[in-house]
């Protein structure tokens, strides 16, 4: 199968401070890759390098075989959609107006969305199931609905690759599953290649067919979630003890769940958590 997005020997540093080195990642159509790792391990920075906001120091990113840096911003935006973490919005645009912005890479400098563009917008709203919200102000809908709006906007770009930065953070349980179900459906039905960062190993087990565990600037493991997400690997990654259990269920078959165990943190544990939880590069 041909590669949608391919990272080879990716290395990036902020000045002297190296964030990651020699990372390799390759996604085909329909792949969903979850990036797991502690706060500040560079997950978001990696996404920014994959999208072209940041430039790798070494290595390269190929988008459908073409060098990412050789593409203009507009050409990139036609192939790659990026859904940011919770963001500030200063004007109360309607949901439909926000999704319309996704058409920008397909429009000339002086154009405004045409009737065809509006059809694509409506289609994107349908796909994520928020057509009924289209006239509501974006500032007055729930967090889950906003996240769906941003996914719809990315879909309106008609991308081949979708990058999502912690799409489930700040959302309630039901909305988390709604977003995950949407992402999974998009990858299966539209053949999108999806890379998402998350703090929940369970989410990776639910939707991804590949997981990368990111630790100290490299992938500690990369592979099928069932193989990669183990009691041992999570202990190393997060410094906590977990049980991994398999559950049989009549309707949905087998599923695997991660059960974290609470134990008293020792002084050496506290010393290990050195990265600030809200640092600028925190992932």
């Amino acid at each position, binding site marked *: 199968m041909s590669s949608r997005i391919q990272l080879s020997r990716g290395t990036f540093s902020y000045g002297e401070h190296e964030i990651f080195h020699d990372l390799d990642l390759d996604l085909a159509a329909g792949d969903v890759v979850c990036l797991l790792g502690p706060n500040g391990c560079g997950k978001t920075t990696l996404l920014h390098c994959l999208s072209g906001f940041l430039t790798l120091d070494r290595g390269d990113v190929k988008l459908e075989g073409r060098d990412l840096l050789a593409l203009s911003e507009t050409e990139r935006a036609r192939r790659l959609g990026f859904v940011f973490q919770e963001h*500030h919005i200063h004007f*109360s645009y*309607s949901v439909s107006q926000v999704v319309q*912005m996704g058409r*920008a890479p397909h429009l000339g400098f002086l154009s405004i969305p045409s009737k065809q563009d509006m059809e694509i917008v409506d289609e994107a709203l349908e796909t994520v199931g928020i057509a009924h919200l289209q006239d509501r102000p974006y500032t007055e809908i729930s967090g889950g609905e906003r996240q769906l709006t941003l996914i719809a906007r990315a879909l309106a770009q008609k991308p081949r690759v979708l990058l999502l930065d912690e799409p489930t953070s700040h959302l309630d349980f039901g909305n988390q599953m709604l977003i995950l179900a949407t992402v999974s459906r998009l990858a299966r039905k539209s053949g999108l290649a999806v890379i998402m960062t998350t703090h929940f190993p369970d989410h990776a087990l639910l939707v991804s067919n590949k997981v990368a565990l990111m630790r100290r600037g490299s992938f500690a493991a990369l592979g099928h979630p069932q193989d990669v997400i183990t009691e041992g690997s999570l202990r190393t990654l997060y410094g906590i003890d977990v049980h991994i259990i398999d559950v049989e269920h009549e309707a949905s078959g087998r599923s695997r769940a991660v059960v974290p165990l609470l134990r008293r943190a020792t002084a050496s544990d506290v010393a290990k958590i050195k990265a600030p939880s809200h640092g600028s590069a925190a992932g």
Partner: protein
Amino acid sequence: MARRHQRTWLLGALFALPLFLVGLSFFLGRFPISPTTLVRVLASRLLPIPQDWPDTVETVIFNIRLPRILLALCIGAGLSVSGAAFQGMFQNPLVSPDILGVTAGAGFGAALGILISGSTTAIQASAFLFGVLAVVISYMISRVYRTTPTMMLVLSGIIVGAIFSALLSLIKYVADPHQKLPAIVFWLMGSLAAASKSDLMTAAPPMLIGIAGLLLVRWRINILSMGDQEARSLGIKTDRLKAFIIFCSTLVTASAVSVCGIIGWVGLVIPHIGRMLVGPDHKVLLPASVALGAAYLILIDDLSRTLISAEIPLGILTAIVGAPFFAFLVRRTQGGRR
């Protein structure tokens, strides 16, 4: 669909408003003109109508009232549309077109022109050039690593504005207190009392170009208002778009200030009224601001020449009317975000 219908109707009404006020404004003033005479005089330019009115009527209509009304229309439209574009670009509804120091620069330029020459052409040219210069300096200070972060633009605008205000004070301080100083002070208050045909000819073309430019990129301002990074992820060349918006807006504001002095509040207040009427979408907000701004400044100028027997400077009225109205608006719209 019904909603879109309603909006078309509303926009139609918005554009009818300045046209109505233009018509009305011809009759205001010390020299009485009847409606029939007005129509006949205006039509005589296009149709062969024999002249049965005194030459004075023709002079009043074409050399005094028409240029003044049209200038008020252009300036009101221009300042408002620049304000709306800047508020979107800076992601802040409390921004006005002079945030990059254009009015401070133009004020200094005009004062310098008054000090060393006093001819209208010199004053206007100097005001325009220093207005543009102030923005160019702000823009250059804000360039870091080949990008223009919005916060840097705001800060450098404040710095440049402060420098030009200080230089303006210096000129006032050294100016002859009997002739030059009053001229500077009156100029700074802003007025269209001396608006002439040649003012209209010099200021209107650059203003119209700037307004047209902003209207052409109006939809992209929506995307710019989501922040640099998000706009870039949507394929927008943010630096190029910002530079274009600053260029158009500066063309408009510097031209406006150079012919009529400093007129504040229009560019801040009108976009808020627009947002209240048509919503935040810049695709509709910018045309609405053009119409509202034009109507507003024509109305204020009508007040300035009719309220009392002497003229009230325009800048004073826009602040006296605009500021309390703005207070009312921001209370209603909770900071202008809805």
